[in-house]
C-alpha cells in the first residue's frame, strides 16, 4: 500500500522550527531524518480498526499559548484537575505548545530532579535527553505516525529522577489544547534512575467539538534498575481531535512501571500502552479504563513484553460503550524465549450500554518459553440483570443502580490515581459520558 496523504508541513518548515528554538544539532537532524522516513513509512495498522480515513493531516502546528501568572487564572475545567486545598508543588501546565505555568519544589530541585518542558530540556539537558529520546522505548521508524511525531514534536515534558531519590509528592502535568486546531505532537520522557521512585500524573484536555486537529503523543517511561514509577493519565480530548497516543514503558532489573490510564477521548483514538520488561524481576501493572460515546472509534492496546526472567506483567482493561461508539481492546502478553518463570496475566472486559455500540475484546498470549505462567479473561456484555435486581431490591432506582455498577466497573483505575482532584475529575467525566 502506498501512502497518499501529503504531509502538511515540509522539511524547510521543520528545519526553521528547530532553528527558531535553538535546538541542538542532534535534534534537528533527528527531526529531518524522521521527516524523510515519514514520507515512506506506512501508517500503523491497529488490529480490527481501519484508520485509513481518520484525520491525521489537518492540523495547525506552531501554536503558542500565553503564560498564566497564577493558577486562579485557569478556566474552571482546568482548575478541576488541581487539588485546590493542597496546591501541587510540582506542576507544569502546557497551553498549546507553550509552557503556561511551572512549579517544582525546592527540595526536588536540590536533589537534582529535572522537571521541565521537553523543548527546554532538549537544550538544557541535551545529553541526557539524547540518551533516552526515542531509543530504548519507542523507535522513530515504527510507522508513519512515530516518524511524524519525531519530525514535528512540539511539546511535552522531561522528568528525570536521579539515583536513589524518592519523590514523595506527585509530579503533575496538564496538557491543554486551548486552540481548537492546535496539534499536540507531545513527547513525554520520564526517566527514573537506579533505585529512584516517582509518581507522575498527566491530563490531556481540549474542547474542540467540531474543529479538526491531531494529537500525536509519544510517552517514554524508563525505570532503570530497581526504580519504581507510578504513572497516571487521563486523556480527555474533545471530538474534533484525532489521537494517536503511544505510551511505552521500559523496566530494567527489578524495576516497576505501573500504569493507571483513563482514556476518555471523544475523538477517534488509537491508544497503545506497551511495557517492555527488560530486566530480571521487572514488573508492570497496567490498568486502563475507557468510555466510548457518540460515534467515537477507539482501538486500545495494552501489551507486556517479557524479556527478563521472573518478570511480571498484569493487564486490566475495562471499557464502557454508549451511543454508537465502537472500541476494540487488545490485550497482549508476549513472553520471549529465555524469560523463564515470567507471569503474564490479562483481563479485558467491555460493558455495552446501548444497542448501537460495539465492543470487542481480543486476548492474545504469545509465549516462546516453557516455564511461565499466563492467563487471560475477556468478556463483552451488558450490565448483569441479577446485579441490577440485587441493587434495585434495596430501593435504588434502576438508573442509579446502573450508575453504581458502571462506576464500580471503572473503579480499578479511578482508585489508583494518586491525586484526589484528578480522581474526582475522572469520576465526573465518566458521569457525564455515560449519561
Amino acid at each position, binding site marked *: 500500500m502506498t501512502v497518499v496523504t501529503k504531509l502538511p508541513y515540509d522539511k524547510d518548515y521543520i528545519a526553521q522550527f528547530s532553528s527558531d528554538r535553538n535546538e541542538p544539532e542532534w535534534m534537528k537532524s533527528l527531526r529531518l531524518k524522521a521527516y524523510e522516513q515519514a514520507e515512506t513509512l506506512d501508517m500503523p495498522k491497529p488490529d480490527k480498526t481501519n484508520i485509513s480515513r481518520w484525520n491525521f493531516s489537518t492540523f495547525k502546528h506552531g501554536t503558542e499559548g500565553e503564560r498564566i501568572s497564577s493558577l486562579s487564572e485557569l478556566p474552571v475545567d482546568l482548575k478541576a484537575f488541581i487539588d485546590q486545598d493542597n496546591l501541587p508543588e510540582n506542576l507544569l501546565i502546557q497551553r498549546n505548545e507553550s509552557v503556561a505555568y511551572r512549579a517544582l519544589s525546592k527540595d526536588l530541585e536540590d536533589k537534582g530532579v529535572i522537571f521541565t518542558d521537553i523543548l527546554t530540556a532538549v537544550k538544557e539537558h541535551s545529553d541526557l535527553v539524547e540518551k533516552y529520546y526515542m531509543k530504548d522505548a519507542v523507535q522513530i521508524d515504527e510507522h508513519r505516525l512515530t516518524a511524524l511525531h519525531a519530525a514535528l514534536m512540539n511539546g511535552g515534558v522531561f522528568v528525570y529522577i536521579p539515583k536513589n531519590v524518592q519523590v514523595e509528592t506527585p509530579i503533575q502535568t496538564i496538557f491543554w489544547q486551548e486552540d481548537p486546531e492546535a496539534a499536540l505532537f507531545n513527547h513525554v520522557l520520564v526517566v527514573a534512575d537506579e533505585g529512584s521512585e516517582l509518581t507522575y500524573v498527566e491530563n490531556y484536555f481540549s474542547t474542540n467539538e467540531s474543529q479538526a486537529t491531531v494529537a500525536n503523543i509519544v510517552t517514554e517511561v524508563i525505570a532503570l534498575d530497581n526504580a519504581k514509577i507510578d504513572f497516571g493519565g487521563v486523556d480527555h480530548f474533545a471530538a474534533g481531535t484525532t489521537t494517536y497516543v503511544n505510551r511505552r514503558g521500559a523496566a530494567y532489573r527489578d524495576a516497576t512501571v505501573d500504569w493507571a490510564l483513563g482514556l476518555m477521548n471523544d475523538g477517534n483514538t488509537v491508544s497503545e500502552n506497551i511495557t517492555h520488561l527488560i530486566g530480571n524481576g521487572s514488573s508492570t501493572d497496567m490498568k486502563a479504563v475507557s468510555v466510548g460515546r457518540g460515534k467515537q472509534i477507539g482501538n486500545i492496546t495494552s501489551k507486556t513484553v517479557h524479556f527478563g526472567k521472573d518478570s511480571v506483567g498484569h493487564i486490566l482493561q475495562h471499557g464502557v460503550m454508549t451511543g454508537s461508539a465502537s472500541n476494540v481492546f487488545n490485550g497482549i502478553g508476549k513472553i520471549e524465549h529465555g524469560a523463564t518463570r515470567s507471569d503474564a496475566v490479562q483481563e479485558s472486559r467491555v460493558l455495552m450500554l446501548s444497542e448501537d455500540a460495539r465492543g470487542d475484546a481480543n486476548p492474545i498470549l504469545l509465549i516462546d518459553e516453557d516455564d511461565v505462567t499466563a492467563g487471560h479473561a475477556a468478556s463483552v456484555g451488558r450490565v448483569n440483570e441479577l446485579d441490577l435486581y*440485587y441493587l434495585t*431490591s434495596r*430501593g435504588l432506582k*434502576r438508573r442509579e443502580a446502573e450508575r*453504581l455498577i458502571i462506576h*464500580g466497573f471503572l473503579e480499578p483505575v479511578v482508585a489508583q490515581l494518586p491525586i484526589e482532584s484528578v480522581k474526582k475529575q475522572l469520576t465526573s467525566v465518566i458521569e457525564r459520558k455515560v449519561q
Partner: protein
Amino acid sequence: MAGSVLEIKNLHVSIEDKEILKGVNLTIKGGEFHAVMGPNGTGKSTLASAIMGHPSYEVTEGSITLDGEDVLEMEVDERARAGLFLAMQYPSEISGVTTSEFLRSAMNARREEGDEISLMKFIKEMDEALDFLEIDKNMAQRYLNEGFSGGEKKRNEILQLLLLKPEIAILDEIDSGLDIDALKVVSKGINKMRTDNFGTLIITHYQRLLNYITPDFVHVMMKGRVVKSGGPELAKRLEAEGYEWIKEELGIQDETVGQEA
C-alpha cells in the same frame, strides 16, 4: 399503629414456562414472624423471589398486595421503597462499589431528595450495626460481597436489614452455610428487628435457626403450595420426625415441584 400487611393470594409462578408455585396463600402482618419450611425443591425460594420481583420469574395467576397496594404492578425498586426487603440466598458481588457506598445509596433511596442522611449520621448508624453483628469494620470499605465468605455475605444481608428497616422482610435461607456462632449473630440481628411494625417471612429447611428465633407461625411447603400451617410446635415436630408424616397424611409421593424426573 400496627405495621404493614403483605397478602399473597393464590399465587402461581413459572420460570421458563414451568410452573413452580401452584396457588400459595399467605398473609404476613407487622409484628408477626412466619417461618416457611419444607424440603429442597418445593418452591420456597421461588416464593421469595416472586415477592421481590426477580426478573426470571413470571407470576401467571394470583395477587400480592402490601397494605392493599398491588405489588405485582411495582418495579423491584418500588417494592423496596414500599417497605419490602429480601435477604437473598445468593447476593450479587458488585466489584468496585464499596459496601458503605452502597448502603448509603440504599438508605438515601428511601428518603426524599434534599433529606439525604448526613455522612456523620450514616457512619454512626453503620458502625453501630457492624458492632452489633460483630462484623469487622473493614468490610464497609470492601467491595460489595466481592470475595466475601458465605458467612460474611449473610451477615451483610442482615446488616442491610438493620439499616434499611423495612416493614416486611423475606429472609431466604439466611441460615444456610453458617456455623453456629454466625447463626447466633444473624439470629440476634433478626430478633432486634422484632417490633409491632415489622413482619418477616423466614425461609429455611433447617429447624436449627428456629432455636434462636421463635416464629409465631410455621408453614410447610410441598409441591408449590403451603400444605400445612401451625404454630412453633409444628417446627418442633418437623425437627423430631421430619417431613414424611406430612407426606403420608396428605398422600404426597414426591414433594418437589418443577424438577426433572
